[in-house]
Each structure stands twice: as structure tokens, then as C-alpha cells.
């Protein structure tokens, strides 16, 4: 069953100079319930604008969209009861109050009974390991602590779809890692659909199963993360440790990226030479102690997609 359906959605803004900018250009996509989708693109690609239309914040210029069967800009209030939204750059919590005070307000807004609210606060406090933070004024929380409390706020009404717009921005490595694990756990435990935008490649690798790349307001790629890595790459990386200094390595299609006396990092053009062929040659010609074959970092893959010329 589909959680999100978008059909030729367009959003234009008129700048003060009267110039019209098309932030989103005829986007069509669908997301199944329970999916974990990364919606990525370079700055100004149209990611946040798309999310804001899908959450009912912005009205589109043309096109149709349904989220859980609701048209976001016409049924914003009904939709808001069924989705959770977390903006890394926006806060749902009241700065001077404690998260607990904000949660009580959200409980009233979402019509939760006192018992139900307390049960959910306990549940997410434990799941997100954040219960100890709930009685500290938000102004005194670190960014990582605040984001955990923000996530709790966006989950209190048990949303079926969770929109996360750069949720790990500004977090340290440990906080980011913990945050990603929480999102995956939520998806697996509750079946919550996750719609994530991020510039952090690790967010995409560790959270999403599917990736949509948007650039210049248009979708330029849509597939599984694993497929993206494999199909778009014509290079593989090899890390080789030799038993004795190999001298110069001269194999067609192989480029030396980095080298020490015995250790080499090689890039293999798999269209020019197969990995098997390169491995055979290395083993035949040199005394190899250890060898590993790696995919290049996802950044490289994404950069290649971003460089796709504008249609």
C-alpha cells in the first residue's frame, strides 16, 4: 500500500526581481508504507520544498500529491494527525520550557488522554534513551540531546509517516550514529515510513534502503541504495599489501591512488579491465600478502549523479 503518491508536482517562487524560480519541476514518485527512503540532492535542489509541500506547509503551483490518502495542502490538519515532521533547522519544542511541558501541550493538541500521553512519553523516553532529559529546560540541552527530545515530540502521536529534513545536522558522530539507529529501530518496530533528506552520506547508507536523487527540481535517480552503488560505478578500489616492494605497477585500467613501500591503493576501471583479470595479473606478477576489493565511497557515487547535466 502506498504511503506517498506524487504526480507531476511543481512549485515556483517569484523572486523580488520578478524572476520565476522553479524549485520543484514536475516530480512524480511513490513511496510504499514502511519504506525507508532517502531524498537527496545538492543545496537548492528542491528537497525541502518537496517535503514542505508533502507536509502541507506549502501549496504547490501545479500537480497532485497524496500522503496517506490526504491531499496535504487541502487536508493539512487531518494529515498532521498522521505524520511526524522533524526539521533539523526548526524546533517544535518551546525554548524556555522543558521538553515535558512541550509534550503536554502536544498531547492536548493531538487529543491524547493523560494516561496515553504518559505511556508514550515513557515508551519513547526509553526507546530513545532520552527520559532523563525531559525535565531540563530546552535552552540548557546540547544539540544532540535536543534532537532526541525533538524526535520524541514528533513521535508522540504515533505517526505513520515520518518526514526528517536534515535531522542530523550539527550533531557529533556519536549522536548521529545513535540517531540513525533509532530511526531504523522505529521503522522496524512500528513500520513507520521514513522520508529522509540529508547531506550526510552515512545517514543515507545506514538508514535508507531506497534513494531518490533530485537536482534542479527534477528527479534524476530512483533506486535501491545498494543498486545505486553497484550500477553507477565503473571503478572499484583495491588495497594491496605486498610481501616485497613491487616497484612500478603497470596494468592496463589500473591507477595507483596512494602508495607506501609495501602498501598500495589502486583504482580499477572495471569497464577497461575486469576485477578477475586484475587480480590474476597481480597474483602472477607480484608477491601479494593481502588484498581487498572495495566499493568507492558513496560520496563519489552521489557526486557523479549530481553532476548529471540539467535537462
Amino acid at each position: 500500500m502506498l504511503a506517498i503518491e506524487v504526480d507531476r508536482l511543481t512549485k515556483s517562487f517569484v523572486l523580488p526581481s520578478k524572476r520565476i524560480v522553479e524549485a520543484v519541476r514536475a516530480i512524480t514518485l511513490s513511496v510504499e508504507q514502511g519504506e525507508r527512503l532517502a531524498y537527496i540532492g545538492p543545496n537548492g535542489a528542491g528537497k525541502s520544498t518537496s517535503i514542505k509541500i508533502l507536509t502541507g506547509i506549502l501549496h504547490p503551483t501545479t500537480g497532485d500529491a497524496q500522503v496517506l490518502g490526504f491531499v496535504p495542502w487541502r487536508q493539512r490538519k487531518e494529515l498532521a494527525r498522521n505524520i511526524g515532521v522533524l526539521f533539523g533547522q526548526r524546533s517544535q519544542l518551546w525554548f524556555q520550557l522543558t521538553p515535558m511541558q512541550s509534550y503536554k501541550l502536544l498531547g492536548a493538541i493531538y487529543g491524547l488522554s493523560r494516561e496515553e500521553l504518559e505511556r508514550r512519553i515513557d515508551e519513547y523516553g526509553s526507546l530513545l534513551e532520552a527520559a532523563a532529559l525531559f525535565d531540563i529546560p530546552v535552552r540548557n540541552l546540547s544539540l544532540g540531546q535536543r534532537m532526541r527530545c525533538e524526535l520524541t515530540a514528533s513521535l508522540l502521536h504515533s505517526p505513520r509517516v515520518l518526514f526528517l529534513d536534515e535531522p542530523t545536522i550539527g550533531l557529533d558522530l556519536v549522536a548521529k550514529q545513535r540517531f540513525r539507529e533509532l530511526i531504523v529501530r522505529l521503522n522496524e518496530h512500528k513500520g513507520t515510513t521514513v522520508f529522509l533528506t540529508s547531506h550526510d552520506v552515512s545517514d543515507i547508507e545506514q538508514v535508507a534502503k531506497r534513494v531518490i536523487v533530485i537536482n534542479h527540481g527534477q528527479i534524476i535517480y530512483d533506486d535501491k541504495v545498494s543498486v545505486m552503488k553497484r550500477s553507477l560505478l565503473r571503478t572499484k578500489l583495491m588495497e594491496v599489501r605486498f610481501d616485497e616492494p613491487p616497484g612500478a605497477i603497470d596494468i592496463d585500467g589500473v591507477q595507483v591512488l596512494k602508495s607506501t613501500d609495501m602498501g598500495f591503493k589502486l583504482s580499477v576501471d572495471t569497464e577497461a579491465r575486469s576485477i578477475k583479470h586484475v587480480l590474476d595479473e597481480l597474483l602472477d606478477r607480484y608477491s601479494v600478502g593481502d588484498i581487498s576489493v572495495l566499493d568507492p565511497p558513496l560520496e563519489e557515487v552521489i557526486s557523479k549523479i549530481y553532476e548529471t547535466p540539467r535537462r
Partner: protein
Amino acid sequence: MRALAATWCSAWLDAWANRRSFWTQLVVMTINDSVWVLFWILFFHRIGEVRGWDTEKMLLLFAILTTAAGIALGVFANARKVGQLAGDGELDATLTLPVDPLAHLLARRIDPSLIGDLAFGPILFALAGGPTPERIALFIVGSLCGAIVLTGFLIAAGSLTLFVGGRGEQADLAFQAALILASYPIDFFGGVTKILLFTAVPAAFISSLPAELVDSFTFQTTATLLGSAAFFSLLGIALFRLGMRRYASGAVWTRA
């Protein structure tokens, strides 16, 4: 209503979080208002009655103005900020909630300094307004109508930001004009200015007409005041709702 009441309570808690600041702002505003009262007492003492207005009637007008402003700008403090919030794209967090955005915005911020006005107005009326049960009732009705007119007018002016751009500068101008002009009795003005005070800047409905209602009740004044309150509140709501279709959000760091 439960959501609105809870939002309003949170706004009070938020303002109350810094108690020293809360009380300082409240006391400073009360001193400011007292200076105005002193000014009008000295003015009428020296000049005498002006176009039917004397100290007693002037203090009545001032009591109504401070009460109305206290409600519109103290209790519904965001009425004055709607344009700025919209222009800066700060309505996103509100729009992700299942609430009426305008009602939520109005309930979500308290301005302690204007709460000083709200405390000052009724006290001034009790001391100088000749309170009788009838006059108290009319004072409440007049102040509420004045507050509704001012709130609606400020929302309408702020909502223009959604049509013409900017950061709510129109609302600042409207706020300044309405409060300054409402500080003086309508009879001090004449000609085109007087017409403007019943239309473009409805200062007459905020203070002079409510004072007239308390001082000499007529059904016509009551109907005019209620009509103006209905008109300006509907104008504010309509312009805000229409404008929200053009809301462009933003990408600024904000606390919502």
C-alpha cells in the same frame, strides 16, 4: 479549545520562565502609563476642557486603550508579529500541527510589558473611571471590542506581507499609527483625518468610541462598536487565510 487553552498556558509558562524579566517589563510599562496619566492631568489642569474632553473622560479613554492594547498586544502578542513571522518563514512548525494556524499563533506568545498595560487599565478605571455595575459592564464590552479591532487590524496589516513581501513592516507602521492615534480623543481630529481614523487606521474604534460607550451609552454606539469588531476580525482572518496560500516558508534558523 483544549489545544488552544494548553497553548495559552504554555505561553504564560514561557513568559514566566524568566520571572525577573517578566516583572521588570511589567513594572516599567506601568511607570510609563503612569507618566501618561500625569501628563493628561497636568494638560487638562492647565488648558481646561478641549472639545468636550476633560481629565475624567481622558483617563477613561486611557484606561480603555491600555486594557485593549494589553489584550491585543500582551495576551495575543503575535498579532503584531504575524507579518514578520510569515515573512521570515517561521510558520512551518505551526503548520505541521493539527491546529488552526492563526488561533495557535495568537495564543502562543505573551508579552509581559503589555501585560503591564492590561493590569494598569482596569486599575485606572477603578480609580478614575467612576465604576458602577453598568459602567463596569460597558468598560469590559468597550475594551474587548477595542482589543478585537486592534488585533484584527494588526493581523490584516501583517498578512499583507504574504501578498507584497517584506518582513511585516506594514504591521509595524499600523501598530505605531493605531496606538499613537488611539491615544488621543477622536474629537481632536477633523476632516479627512477623522474619516481615516474610522477606516484606514481604525483608532477611533479602539479607544474613543468605547470611551463614548461607557460615558454615554447608546444602542447605536454599541452596534457600531460590535460591527467594527466583527468587520476587523473577519478582515484579519480572511487576509491571513488568503495570504497563507502564498506562504513561501524559508530556510532560517528559528525557534518556531
